[in-house]
């Protein structure tokens, strides 16, 4: 278990803001200059952003399970990075098809689409009861809420 308290969230929010800033910079400068490498780094920054928000959302009562950190969180970022790398390195090239698909197409469809589904949808299904909304945590929340008046 990793503790993600208020200080850690402050740091994660700063990292997120920096990622957004870098992504805007990479698009703004890399686009007109046709600097695909800078744009590629911008794409990698989006992987970091995915991981950062995931970490904050997957915390339950200030604790983040180590297994959840590995899968789905970090694996999601890694699969996205592989997808972007394949797309970047094969962009616009006439290449041998693999399984009837261009390698860049495989990067996008298999690693990004499929990988994201495995790391978000499948993990949400498998881990919902124990890691996403544990029943005891929800009941503790309801108990606390019922002891107070609704806020308006």
């Amino acid at each position: 278990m990793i503790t993600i308290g208020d200080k850690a969230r402050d740091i994660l929010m700063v990292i997120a803001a920096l990622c957004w800033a870098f992504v805007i910079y990479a698009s703004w400068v890399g686009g007109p200059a046709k600097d695909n490498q800078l744009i590629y780094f911008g794409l990698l920054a989006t992987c970091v952003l995915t991981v950062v928000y995931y970490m904050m959302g997957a915390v339950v009562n200030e604790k983040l399970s180590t297994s959840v950190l590995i899968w789905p969180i970090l694996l999601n970022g890694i699969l996205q990075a592989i997808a972007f790398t394949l797309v970047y390195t094969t962009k616009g090239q006439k290449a041998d098809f693999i399984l009837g698909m261009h390698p860049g197409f495989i990067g996008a469809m298999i690693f990004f689409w499929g990988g994201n589904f495995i790391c978000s949808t499948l993990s949400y299904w498998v881990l919902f009861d124990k890691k996403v909304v544990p029943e005891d945590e929800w009941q503790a929340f309801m108990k606390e809420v019922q002891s107070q008046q609704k806020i308006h």
Partner: protein
Amino acid sequence: MDEQLIQPTPLIIGYTVVFILVSIGIGIYANKYAKSAEGFFGGTKAFGGIVIGLASAAAVMSAFGFIGGPGLVYKFGFTSIWMTIACGPGFAYGYWVIGKRMRAMAEVTDVATLPDIARVRFQSQAVRGVLAIGLCLAAIAYLSSQVKGGAKLMNQMLGVSEEMGVVIMFGTTLAYMLVSGMSGSILTDAFQGLVMLIGVMGVIVAYFAMTGGDMAVIMNSPQFGPTFVDGAGAMPFQLVITFAMVFFIGVMGQPTMLAKMYAVKDHRDLKIAGILGGVTYGLTSLVWILVGYGAIWIVATGGAPPIKDLDKAAFLFLSKTGGVLQALVMAALLAAIMSTASFFISLAAGNITRDLAGAFGHEIPIDKQVVYGRWIQVVVSLFAIGFGYWGGRAVAILGTLGWGFFASVTIPAFVMGLLWRRCSREGVLVGLTFAVIANIVLPILENFKIYRLPFPYYLLTIGGSVILTTVVSFFTKSCAGENLPEQLKPVFKL
């Protein structure tokens, strides 16, 4: 009237009429959930996970995905597909990140609209008002994007003029929205999601039967080439960043999803809602992909001359399929448009009736809100039709406008507001104000050819609002950290 690529057969017309009648019937039935303001504007805590999952996917997938999307694939190859492949898995990602906290807010306060949550979180009528303005403008923009697509669809489906098509489509939608508001929207959206799924199955079969999955012919075609089969496409490469990020992370900033998170009856329903929403959307996104590539394949193999109107790509593909399939897919297209339209009519009406009036100090009595809301739905629809039909912007462009606008106001207010105790009232107010102004100014600068960013401007509006909210929150304290209202503190423990 446009070139008729599809012949309106009795089967297509009959299936469409049945679809419309069932939608109206379900909408009227949903009135039992819409007796209160919370039910009429939010469908709050009323539905199970299956209904919410299907409804979320149906509302997110719109005319843009079914008509504009394939057109962009036809013109630019893979680039636009990043939007739709990011969006499907983004559903469960969004539920992972803020699903439980959005649902939890419905336990600590009375929620009918999204600005209700923002007002309570930040204890501010100003936040509520600015958010409502942002949501309302974006809803009307998004709604307008459905008008053109719907008009073209009805023209191809029924052979009626585009103007008559708009009257039929919006008249039907309003017929049940007036009775049951957001509850009607959610329940009919779930049915329409099912209709979309049936259409998707037809598209998958038709695509592979027609093309055999052969993309080599596209790569070797002099008209198209490798950029039409790779993973980046023919649009500028930096657009992949925007599309991949804004449409993956940005899904959780879409009201079509956020508002559903508090509409689930029980917290356990979040599970099915997140899974089913993502899987359903993922399947429907195959229409965007396969229909687009199908149209390219037809032209690349000489099956049809190149098309100039990109919105016709979907109809070109369908014109090469059989009558039954055409009926199924056309109804799915109509379902996509009506489900999105009904949601945004309700969203805008709720924001005006409940939030804008309240933010300006004229809180409409609870028992009158539903009555006023009904009338405002009519006004919103008429305004959106006028703007969308005679506004002159393409369906695809308007669709992306709405999406980015939403994310730029909801990510600071809800994602940051509910994930980060330190997120302050001043911070979110600065972020939201920037987002609303920038989302209006930047497209004006583009339209007048004064300045155009080398990427979709909404990347700047979303990123800018997040950065400003973060920076200002570090230097201000209202409703943040220890100043958070006591009743909200349990939400942050979940």
